[in-house]
């Protein structure tokens, strides 16, 4: 009986638990169904929108700016450098409407940003990320952020934003260019922008509701690839000296502008390429827009008598004349369309070719050039590099103007023979004269040490500089001997240009300048001087050109000559070049 009742109770209990179990299963099934339905809803219908919504709510995307490469001079001194800066950003959702004006005032005072723009950024609806200030020096930015936090503003953040610095200010600014707010403007900065810029990285991380980064939240980082450095062949000390000497000469001559080039004769490396007036790369807006480039590359002008060195050395190379060839030079030379004069009036003179060069006679040079075969001078000038860009890697260089063979005729040849009707840029002319210094072998002038690729795909630099023989060594030596007579006070124009104690080869140029508005000679001049020293073992080629307004007193030798002498002296001194100790050329100039 008792056994029966026990077994009866057991059945009842089993029944109840089965019911409980079924109910339990039912509840679980319902819950799982809800989950499944939600899953289908999330995954099947527009999953992207949900993912995006999730990302927007707590995922922060930040660009990690790559550090821009440094531009240094040949000794590694920085001419353009990137330093750590911070961009200050704000999360407008954390700024209460009545806080915004006070915060905007605070930021305007501390960072010098525009009040109205900052206020607008702080009030931007539906945004959690607004830029307040770019490129704030890191120390200053951190100080401002700390102060803001202490005053109870929690909506400000910072992120990397490198600053471009030009520690040498105006030294080589014409070559370096500068960074504008929208990117590189001019010079190396512009030409090699892709190489210098590197590739920005990206960082994604989770933030908490209050905007702070979750320390253990999920994050992913693509590291930025920093830009490559560029080393120039420029010697910043020499460049500085050249710029100062040039400026002083320009000021003294009341010049429109001036240019000077120093080339390492054997390597073709440009040690200095100066323009005046120029600008401070750290404060480009302080200078007129016209001064923000490199006139030494972009501006073309007629080189005048300096070009005679190319004409005469070509004639010697072609075997037409020698340095002792005798010329009878009349006071005026009547040609097809014009009368050619010398810079000063004289009767008929008996000069050797050395005398023609030393005294810079147009008539003597034209008479000598009559010995050229058809188009021969054109071919030589082309080989000297006239009419072609030097392609040192700075955009905006002008190729100059060398009349084509089609345009070529006897009148044009007459004028080109003494440096008219042909236009050059300063570096081009310096490289051509350097050809004579380098024993007749032209070497590409280069400004980039090693090699670098421009944005347009050109590979430039000392590693890829090419050489070509233009005139024979003998012709170059004879030309050098004649050019030494220019700097000799006894035979030259009595001008300066000679570095005392050193054999110095030089050539003056006093060219009429073409006024671009009228296309005529308006009385303005280009005073220039090119030369190299020590003449018998050249180390440097220096070229100076100073453009003066109409009716300015002066000449190539008198105005540019002393600049040449100072620059050459400084270069010889700085690089410890001793005089060769040999006797200077004593070529006869008259007969």
């Amino acid at each position, binding site marked *: 009986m008792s056994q029966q009742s026990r077994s009866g109770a057991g059945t009842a209990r089993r029944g109840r638990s089965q019911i409980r179990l079924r109910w339990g299963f039912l509840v679980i099934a319902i819950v799982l169904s809800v989950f499944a339905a939600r899953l289908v809803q999330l995954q099947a219908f527009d999953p992207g929108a949900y993912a995006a919504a999730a990302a927007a709510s707590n995922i922060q995307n930040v660009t990690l700016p790559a550090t821009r490469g440094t531009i240094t001079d040949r000794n590694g001194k920085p001419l353009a450098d990137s330093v*750590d800066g911070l961009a200050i950003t704000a999360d407008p959702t954390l700024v209460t409407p009545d806080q915004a004006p006070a915060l905007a005032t605070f930021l305007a005072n501390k960072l010098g940003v525009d009040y109205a723009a900052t206020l607008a950024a702080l009030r931007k609806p539906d945004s959690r990320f607004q830029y307040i200030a770019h490129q704030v020096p890191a120390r200053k930015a951190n100080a401002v952020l700390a102060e803001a936090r202490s005053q109870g503003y929690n909506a400000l953040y910072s992120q990397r934003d490198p600053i471009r610095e030009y520690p040498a200010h105006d030294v080589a600014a014409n070559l370096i260019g500068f960074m504008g707010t929208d990117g590189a403007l001019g010079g190396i900065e512009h030409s090699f922008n892709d190489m210098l810029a590197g590739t920005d990285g990206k960082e994604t991380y989770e933030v908490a509701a209050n905007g702070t980064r979750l320390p*253990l939240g999920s994050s992913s980082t693509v590291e930025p690839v920093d830009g490559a450095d560029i080393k120039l062949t420029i010697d*910043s000390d020499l460049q500085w000296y050249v710029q100062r000497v040039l400026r*002083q000469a320009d000021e003294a001559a009341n010049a429109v502008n001036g240019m000077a080039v120093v080339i390492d004769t054997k390597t073709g490396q440009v040690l200095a390429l100066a323009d005046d007036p120029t600008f401070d790369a750290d404060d480009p807006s302080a200078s007129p827009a016209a001064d923000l480039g490199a006139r030494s590359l972009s501006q073309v002008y007629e080189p005048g008598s300096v070009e005679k060195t190319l004409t005469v050395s070509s004639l010697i190379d072609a075997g037409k004349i020698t340095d002792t060839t005798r010329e009878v030079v009349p006071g005026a030379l009547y040609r097809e369309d014009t009368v050619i004069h010398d810079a000063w009036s004289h009767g008929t003179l008996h000069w050797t070719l050395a005398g023609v060069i030393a005294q810079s006679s147009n008539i003597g040079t034209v008479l000598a050039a009559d010995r050229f075969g058809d188009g021969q001078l054109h071919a030589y000038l082309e080989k000297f590099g006239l009419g072609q860009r030097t392609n040192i890697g700075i955009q905006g260089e002008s190729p100059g103007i060398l009349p084509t063979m089609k345009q070529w005729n006897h009148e044009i040849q007459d004028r080109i023979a003494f440096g008219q009707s042909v236009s050059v840029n300063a570096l081009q002319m310096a490289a051509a004269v350097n050809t004579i210094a380098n024993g007749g072998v032209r070497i590409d002038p280069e400004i980039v040490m090693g090699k670098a690729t421009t944005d347009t795909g050109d590979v430039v630099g000392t590693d890829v500089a090419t050489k070509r023989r233009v005139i024979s060594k003998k012709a170059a030596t004879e030309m050098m001997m004649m050019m030494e007579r220019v700097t000799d006070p006894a035979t030259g124009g009595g001008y300066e240009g000679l570095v005392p*104690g050193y054999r110095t080869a030089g050539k003056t140029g006093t060219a009429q300048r073409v006024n671009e508005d009228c296309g005529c000679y308006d009385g303005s001049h280009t005073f220039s001087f090119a030369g190299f020293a020590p003449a018998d073992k050249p180390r440097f080629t220096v070229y100076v050109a100073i453009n003066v307004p109409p009716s300015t007193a002066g000449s190539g030798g008198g105005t540019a000559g002393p600049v040449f002498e100072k620059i050459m002296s400084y270069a010889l001194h700085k690089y410890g070049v001793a005089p060769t100790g040999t006797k200077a050329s004593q070529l006869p100039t008259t007969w």
Partner: protein
Amino acid sequence: MSSTAAAQARRPRWATNPATDALQRARLFLVPRSRAKASKVPFIVLVSALLVGGVVGLLCFNTSMQQAAFSEAKLSQEATDLAAKQESLETQLQRLQNPQSIAARAQAHGMVIPPTPAVLHVPSGKVSGVATPATAVSTPRLWGTEYRHALMVIQR
């Protein structure tokens, strides 16, 4: 009853009746179920300890990780600050090293740039080149003149 007992007593032990023995053996009787109840307490304590220990351990681990992350953030901020400081000092150095500021300082000390190079050959004591005394004018002017500055302003 007693006769049976006597008969049984009389019967030698070895003369047992097999049938009775079998019966005797076959008789089953209820043995009280021994409920040696194992104590649940140690098990519960163990599980609870594991659970609590696990949770607390995880919490501690997490906290220390967070702490490490925070101190990492703090230290990296400090590193950034120091790097910024170093950089600003380097910038300052670069500015001091620029040729213009060196020249300005040298000039303030009365130094000038020599006009013409000359070389002294120590073994022979001979000088090549023309040794020329430096003068105040052999150094170029370090700053542009007011006139040029004014001209620039007008052009602008």
